[in-house]
């Protein structure tokens, strides 16, 4: 239902009815923000990236054909925005555990958010330690509601290959989680 609505809205945006982009923004600002936030753990940066995604949607609206799913197209743009950002800052994803613990203790946002749930805190830390591609596939799975076929279209691979990628990412996440659990 939403997808049909999304596509129809995006077609209207393409035809010049820019107000309809506001509706799409209200629908997807949170999932997009969540996707970016779990990728970089920076609120301001994530907001900028969400803004960037909608800027690109508007700029490249003529490329939307309405044949595929709008959300897939939007996440395709979001991935590009994210990759562009990581390329730009050469983000250091390989910090050791002590640095992460220090970072966690200094991060008021995160403390406030996760203090009541140690498991989620550990999971968040484990996610942060995952390689970018694996973190991305898990977040796509989360925000794409496990629609592996659509994720496959987004990544340019088969549905089966997406499931394998998710499995491998989950394996690694589980291992990281256990490591963190032992340290704490």
């Amino acid at each position: 239902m939403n997808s049909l609505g999304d596509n129809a809205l995006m077609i209207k945006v393409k035809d010049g009815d820019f107000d309809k982009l506001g509706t799409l923004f209200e629908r997807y600002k949170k999932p997009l923000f969540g996707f970016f936030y779990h990728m970089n753990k920076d609120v301001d940066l994530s907001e900028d990236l969400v803004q960037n995604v909608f800027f690109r949607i508007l700029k490249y609206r003529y490329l939307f054909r309405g044949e595929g799913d709008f959300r897939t197209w939007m996440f395709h743009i979001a991935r590009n925005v994210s990759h562009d950002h990581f390329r730009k800052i050469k983000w250091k994803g390989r910090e050791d555990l002590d640095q992460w613990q220090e970072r966690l203790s200094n991060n008021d946002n995160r403390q406030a958010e996760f203090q009541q749930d140690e498991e989620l805190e550990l999971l968040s830390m484990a996610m942060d330690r995952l390689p970018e591609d694996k973190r991305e596939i898990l977040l796509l799975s989360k925000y794409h509601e496990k629609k592996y076929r659509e994720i496959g279209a987004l990544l340019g691979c088969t549905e089966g290959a997406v499931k394998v990628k998710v499995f491998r990412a989950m394996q690694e996440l589980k291992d990281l989680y256990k490591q963190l659990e032992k340290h704490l």
Partner: protein
Amino acid sequence: MKIDEAYIQQLLDRVAAGVATQGDHLEIEELLDGGVIRPEDIESHARIEQQLLRLDAPEPSSSLDRQFYQMLSNNKSSKKAMRWSQFFQWPQLVPKFAIASVMLLVGVGAGYFLRPSADAPGDGEIAYLSRQVSDLQEMMMLSLLEKGSATERLKAVNLTQEMNEASQKVTNALIQTLSEDENINVRLAALEALKPYTTDSSVREALIRSIAKQESPLVQISLAELMVALQERSAVKEFEKIVDSDRTPAEVKKKIRETMEILI
């Protein structure tokens, strides 16, 4: 791929217990790729996945909304306003230049092919040819006026209407026809043909002189009307001659008197 459910369950159990070998993992991947099992079937993963779904991000701040709607507003206003600066931007100019160049080439080509050829006569030659045609028409008209047939003479008189400007010779011939032709219709046609030349005083004088020579009431009345139109007072004396003549019908006399009253 023929693998029984019990075997698959054993594989999944080993993964859940964390004792799966590299080979087990490869087999699981094969099963996933083949669609035999789903990622959700792996219990240990399912638990983490559930947690993953609960892993919330903080709420985006209001500045995200503010920035987005500002961007939207800017785009809407820039879309509405016609920007001349955009007109001159290179990507827009390229097709315009292309079209202009093509049109210029088409124009030059058309001009080249449609230009007057070297053999075509110039303005002077055209004037010369035109004069030749006029001379020919004049000669033909004068020749036809001498014909015995009234029809031929009428044709001759009508030929003058095709001439841009009749020569003195032609107007004289017409005046002669008006005064002397035996056919009333030919005289009337000659009078009609002379009207465009009444601005010439010699033609007007000739017309006045011809009044006394007319015996046909139709020609007399036509001349009277023309004199009124020209406000030619000097014609009154000639009209008096017609009025005084016993051969002039009473109705014509009446009309002529009216004309004289207007002219006096």
